[in-house]
């Protein structure tokens, strides 16, 4: 039962409550750094580190943090992890760090992270909070990657820098530019909502016919 609960917290973030597709959170990095798959994954990993780390700390100290100043406490915890992520990326992959630029320090302002602290980590035990953070971060990573992959394939004819269509590919310049991010995200959201609606219709249908049969 207990194992089930933490598994449930993990899985929900990947598809059903996906932070981007279902909650539409974290739009700033979503639109800004997804012009290539590598950037998207680096941003996703950095966010995952920050989210899991701060969820762990916040959840552990949830009884100690005074309710009145909890937001500032969350921000300080998040900022600590962001600073660590910032310097780690700078040391390990300076090229990616340069491309992501100001968007790594801006993880502090990612409402996905603050939202999870406020809505989940500060109310639930550490184990569940970490599982929730992992699930949400995975969902965010999936969303970032799908956007980054589409934009890099169409905008550059490549994936992870490997040319897919040969030399004479005509790049879709718009996909590298901000409008491409908005267009792609809009289309993915459209697909997600369409799929969810179909699924709910189907489930309602099944439930309806079962009700009649019984």
């Amino acid at each position: 039962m207990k194992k089930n609960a933490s598994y449930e917290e993990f899985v929900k973030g990947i598809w059903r409550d996906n932070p981007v597709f279902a909650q539409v959170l974290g739009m700033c990095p979503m639109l800004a750094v997804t012009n290539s798959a590598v950037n998207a994954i680096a941003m996703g990993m950095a966010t995952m580190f920050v989210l899991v780390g701060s969820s762990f700390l916040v959840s552990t100290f949830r009884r100690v943090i005074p309710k009145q100043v909890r937001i500032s406490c969350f921000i300080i915890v998040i900022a600590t992890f962001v600073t660590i992520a910032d310097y780690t990326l700078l040391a390990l992959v300076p090229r990616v760090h340069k491309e992501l630029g100001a968007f790594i320090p801006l993880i502090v302002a990612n409402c996905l992270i603050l939202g999870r602290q406020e809505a989940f980590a500060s109310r639930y035990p550490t184990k569940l909070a970490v599982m929730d953070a992992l699930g949400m971060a995975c969902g965010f990573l999936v969303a970032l990657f799908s956007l980054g992959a589409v934009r890099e394939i169409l905008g550059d004819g490549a994936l992870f820098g490997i040319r897919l269509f040969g030399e004479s590919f005509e790049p879709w310049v718009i996909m590298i530019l901000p409008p491409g991010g908005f267009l792609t995200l809009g289309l993915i959201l459209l697909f997600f909502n369409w799929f969810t609606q179909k699924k709910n219709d189907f489930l309602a249908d099944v439930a309806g016919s079962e009700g009649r049969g019984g």
Partner: protein
Amino acid sequence: MREREPKLLLFHAPLLRQATTTPKAMRDVIYALLPATGAAVWFFGLGAILVLSASILGAVAAEWLFGSRAAGAAGCLRGRSLLDGSGLLTGLLLGLTLPPGLPLWMAFLGGFVGITLGKLIWGGLGQNLFNPALLGRAFLLATFPIAMTTWVPAAAGTGLTDLYPGSLALPFMQSGIDGVTAATPLGLMKFEQEATPLAALAFGNTGGSLGETSGLLLLLGGLYLWLRRDLDWRIPVGILLTVASFSFCLGLFDAGRFPAPLFSVFSGGLLLGAIYMATDPVTSPVTPKGAWVFGVGVGLLVMLIRVFGGLPEGVMYAILLMNAATPLIDRYTQPRVFGYGVGSE
């Protein structure tokens, strides 16, 4: 869900039907565009037909694929919205704004995007904020900036069976072949201060988009539309007057540097945009006063972009920007309802 057969039919008051229907109005605009389309074929040969068909095909394909969903609320069958001809018209209008040597797959994509993102995603015919054809063109211009600004010289009547080798590029591939290119009259004016003779502009023997070359034939189509009452004359007149007077005023300062009024009116896509796109009843104001505001706004923006902007031509962005302002214009130019608001308010 099946519709039940009604036992009693009740109708609301306006029982007198107007003879104009959407398909009729669309057909009128298509007829009005035929002379200009013929001129495009005359000047650019088989390539023009191919580009036009590709963009029409793209628009119609999108309409057929997704149109049923947009019309789903009304219980329409798949492909039903094809019958009103609006998809065809959007494809034709878009095709007329494209350069003659554009790879066909790009023209197809433009038509497809124009209909899906420009019209159906808003809820179908009559719901869209922006002109679908211009939206498709804006998408193409932002996506393929080089291909969209490569012009070929017009070859009146001599190259009817010629093909532009670049237009047959495989999907997602560059055309790769460098053909003969030419500058548009506006490009020449902006970057080399060289005016094209007015006769060439009026008859259309210049480089440029398919439909923007022959000014007189576009005016002829506009006249037909005006006679058929399919067009709010205030919008094109407002646009053209604003452009002409703006460039007349500029000419007072420095006649050599700025375009002459008639050149401004006849060059580029201004006539095509002013007569056929700015007057799209869905995306332009419905009130008479609003139509004037809209026309003057488009004219001002066109001249501002042409003279002070980085681009040689600005009709597309001018119309799209004013499209966005249309609901606001409509709201502030409501005519007074008879008997209300006299003295008070």
